[in-house]
Every structure is written in structure tokens, then in C-alpha cells.
């Protein structure tokens, strides 16, 4: 297509006419689509900007100066929120590692077959059902305040620690279901092939099934990581985590100005868009190339 050189072909006049016709049509369609998109977006924008509340709205939500000015206490909100985001990222990365371990264990336990493994399976099922069903915030409260309340001396007392445990257990339940889906999507014939080579059940899982299963659900895992990143801020209900959203909230509570929230949102989007792009790219590389083709 790109070249007409390789085999010396060049379009016949008829084909050139067709190509020209198609190009014209395509241009017209694109133009219509573009114009209508622009019109829709434009109408919304005009409506918003000309609304009677626009000025106050802008001051409340888009007061750029406020976010970048040095505050009376010497801080700059933009910087504080950015620092908070860095904390979100660190918590998310550390939690993700623990999540993957917990989730893999639960997924493998649930994938065991046969009555022998009933107790283990039951444990894993109970765990995933419970933690998928509980609102995240309740899990955080239960762990963040409940475990320290027991005052078991050798257990840590830190709300951050227990908040992270709560997140790990919540997400672990979700991610274990994702991993299980991945593991179970690997055709049994792969297992048969591995076992027939003499690999044990464990080796088969380790070298054949899990690597393929994980690969297959990588997009879902990445999506969950994005969610986790956004949810790390929830730990702040326990009082300790100066994440991006809390820093924005503190700034807002000083001034009743919501721009710090908008700014925090922007930072999150900037951070997550590349992640979702990677996710999409992986998903595309694995699956069909869309419903595509030329029809």
C-alpha cells in the first residue's frame, strides 16, 4: 500500500478514480464528524462560560494563582499536593507487591481441585467473598482502628501500617479473582502437556500456567493498579496519610477554594493516562486487533 514499487504495480486509472472518490468521501465524513464534535464541545463551553455562575465557578475551581502562590505558612499548595502524590505512588507500589503475593496465594488455593483441598479452598473463598463484599472504607476502619485496639504488644500500632494491610486485603481479594480468571483461562491442554513431560503440579503452575495466566490478565492487573493508586488516599480516614487528596482537602479547608482538588485530579490523570495507554497497548497486542478489518 505504502509503496507501489515492490512489484512495480501502480494503480490503474480506474483505481485512481476510485481512490479519489473514496478520499473525497472520507474527507467529507471526517469533516462532518470533526465539525459536529467541535460544535458539541463548543456549545457546552459557551454555555458554561456564559452562565451567570461562571465567574464564581472559575474562582472556586480554577484559581490557578492560589495553587501556585506561597501560602502564609510558607508552603505552596501545588508542591504539597505533588508531594502527596509521590506518597500515593510509593504506597501503591509497596502495597501492589503485597497484593500480588496475597492474591496469587488465594488464586492458587481456589484453583485446587478435588475434595482433598476443600479446607484450603474454603478459606480462600471465604477471604475473597468477604473482602470483595465489604466497602473499602469499612475494611480500613476495621483494620486501622480495630487491630490497634486489641493492643497485642508485638503487633504494630501504626494506622498507616494497618491501613495498608486493609488495602492489601481488599485489593488482594479482587486481584486474586483476576489472577484466577487468568489461570483458569489457560487451556487444560497446556497443563496436560506440562504434566506429560513429568513436571509436578507445582512446577506446572510455576513455569507454565501462572506465567501465561498473568500475561493474559496483565491489562486487568494494570487497571487495578490504577485504581489502587487512586484509593491509597483512603488511608487518610485513619488520620495519617498526607496524600495528594488530603493535602488538597487541607488547602481547601483553609480557604474554601476548590482549585487544589482540581489540581490534584489533573496530577492523577497525568499519571494514569500513560498507564492506561500501556494497558491498552498490551491488551491490543494480546487480543484480536479490534473488530477491525475493512468491513
Amino acid at each position, binding site marked *: 500500500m505504502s509503496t507501489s514499487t515492490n512489484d512495480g504495480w501502480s494503480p490503474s486509472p480506474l483505481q485512481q478514480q476510485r481512490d479519489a472518490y473514496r478520499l473525497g468521501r472520507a474527507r467529507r465524513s471526517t469533516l462532518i464528524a470533526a465539525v459536529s464534535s467541535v460544535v458539541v464541545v463548543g456549545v457546552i463551553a459557551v454555555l458554561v462560560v456564559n452562565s451567570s455562575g461562571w465567574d464564581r465557578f472559575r*474562582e472556586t475551581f480554577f484559581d490557578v494563582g492560589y495553587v501556585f502562590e506561597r501560602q502564609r505558612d510558607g508552603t505552596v499548595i501545588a508542591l504539597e499536593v505533588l508531594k502527596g502524590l509521590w506518597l500515593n505512588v510509593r504506597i501503591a507500589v509497596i502495597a501492589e507487591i503485597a497484593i500480588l503475593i496475597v492474591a496469587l496465594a488465594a488464586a492458587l488455593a481456589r484453583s485446587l481441585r478435588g475434595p482433598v483441598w476443600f479446607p484450603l479452598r474454603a478459606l480462600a473463598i471465604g477471604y475473597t467473598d468477604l473482602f470483595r463484599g465489604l466497602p473499602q472504607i469499612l475494611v480500613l476502619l476495621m483494620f486501622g482502628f480495630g487491630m490497634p*485496639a486489641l493492643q497485642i504488644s508485638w503487633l504494630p*500500632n501504626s494506622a498507616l501500617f494497618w491501613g495498608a494491610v486493609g488495602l492489601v486485603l481488599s485489593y488482594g481479594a479482587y486481584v486474586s479473582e483476576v489472577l484466577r480468571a487468568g489461570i483458569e483461562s489457560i487451556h487444560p491442554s497446556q497443563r496436560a502437556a506440562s504434566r506429560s513431560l513429568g513436571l509436578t503440579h507445582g512446577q506446572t503452575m510455576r513455569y507454565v500456567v501462572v506465567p501465561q495466566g498473568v500475561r493474559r490478565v496483565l491489562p486487568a492487573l494494570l487497571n487495578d493498579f490504577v485504581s489502587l493508586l487512586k484509593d491509597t488516599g483512603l488511608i*487518610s480516614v*485513619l488520620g495519617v496519610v*498526607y496524600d495528594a487528596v488530603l493535602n488538597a482537602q487541607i488547602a481547601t479547608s*483553609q480557604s*474554601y*477554594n476548590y482549585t487544589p482538588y482540581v489540581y490534584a485530579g489533573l496530577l492523577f490523570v497525568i499519571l494514569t493516562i500513560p498507564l492506561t495507554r500501556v494497558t491498552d497497548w498490551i491488551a491490543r497486542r494480546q487480543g484480536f486487533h479490534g473488530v477491525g478489518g475493512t468491513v
Partner: protein
Amino acid sequence: GSSDSAGSGGGSDTSAATGQTTGAPAGSDAGSSSGAAGSGAAGSGAAGSGGAALGGDCTPDKLQTTTPGTLTIATSEPVYEPWMVDNDPTNGKGYESAVAYAVAEQLGYPKDKVAWKRVGFDEAVARQQGWDFDINQFSISQDRLKRVDMSSGYYDVTQTVITTKGSPIDGATSVGQLKDAKLGAMIGTTSLTALNDVIAPNSKPSVFKDNAAAAQALKNKQIDGLVVDLPTAFYMTSAQLDNGAIVGQLPGTTSEKEQFGLLLAKNSPITACATKAVDALRANGSLEKFNAEWLSGKDTAPVLTK
């Protein structure tokens, strides 16, 4: 954490602005000092709240309330003792409930012309619609006055450090002894600002979203102390913590006098009348009476030395 140094300058700004915007600098300042000083005279029964309507422009037929003829008062859900009792603003119990009804009376609304509306904190400050004023321990500050209106102050806030008996800071007498403690405060309150400005602790304070969470953290010894306003300090240490203890009041920075005011929508037509009503209540001793009745009048915790 790096935010402590410029604190004192900020403090003075705040109080100055408060005075200007309420339009009653003298009354406001005088009121607050008299309120603090005259606590011993609480319950002298100077006014009662009854009957003393403001009149003038501040009557139900002149006031442009959200629902004509009715005063719609907002507060959050849930509300905490001792500011309101049983999470029920309509029962007239608790300091803020009493103040709200007294203000309504000043404006000429009898009890049955007062409607309550429960709104969240964010909803109140971001939407500013659907009610006439909001009473929910909003501290007056210059920054906030850019976005909202506030009446003059109906309560003079003293920030107080509480703890549990036997904790590292139990019995501390100076601010310096608190520096190494793990402290907490509620978000959205000026307690947090005061904590950072006055104590400037070495570890960043914990920030809680409601009183119950803060109390729980204190009980669990996840924090050593909590900075709250004085009435809350009394309520928590007496009613909610098994072995709570008040450490002491934070010393104010020079002219910094923090007050709670009624929150009104920016440029609300009612702001001036609300301020007048609060000032009248202060003048006629009602605020003191309420203080004595609902806050025990005991704003007498020891002041920590600097």
C-alpha cells in the same frame, strides 16, 4: 513537613480581617474579650433570649430568606455533642442549637418558623444554596471570607490538647513538652492550624475526618494527644474517653482570637442581620448563658506555657 515558620504573621492577619468584614470591629473584639473574661458571671440571666427581636431591616418580611417567611438553618450530619445533642438540632439542646434558635428569634422567627437542613461540610462551603445560614463550628478566617460570608463570632475558641491518662504527655505543662508527641486534629478545623503554628510538632500531625475516628485513635494510643476546641475537649474527656485527660489550652499567638461564626452564602442579603443578631446575643448575655448551660461554662483548663 515544612510549614511552621511563617505562622505568627498569618495569625494577626486573620483577626484583623475578621474585624473588618463583620463590619463590627469594636463589638466583635470587645465581645470576645468580655466573653472570655466574664465567664464567671455566666447564668446571671441578663437577657434570656426571649422577645428581644432586632426589628428594623431584620424582620421576616424584609429578609430575603431561601423560603420566604421561614429561616432555614443548615448544619452537618452527624453533629456532635456538646454543640448539639442527640444529633438533633431541633431540640434546642446544645450550644449551637440554642444559639441558632436565639438568632432566629432575634430576626423575628419563632421556633416553628425555623427549618433545619442537614448539609455536609463541603456542600455548605461549595454550594452555598438552599439555606440561610449554617452553624457548624466554622472558624472565621480571612481566606474563607473570600468565598463565603460569616457573621461575627458567637463563640471564642480556645484550642485544647487532650490525652489519655498515663500517656507520655499526660501532665505536660508547656508547649515544648508536646513537640515530640504524636498529635492529631480534625480536618477543616483551625485546631490543625493551631497545632502546626503553636506546637509545631516534630512529626506531622494526624488529620481526622470526624471526632469518632480521632477519639478511637487516641484510645488505641495511635496518637498521644488530640487538639480540639475546649468544649469538645471537655465532652470527649468526660463522656467518650474512659480515662481522658485535658493537658491544657494552647497559648494564643499575640492578637490571635479565634471565633466561630455563622456561615452564609457569599454576598448573602442576610449577613448584616445575622451579625447584628449575634452581636445582640453577646450584648444581652445570652451567649454566656448558653455557654453556662451547655458547655458547663468551665473554659478553665490550665494554659500551657510556651
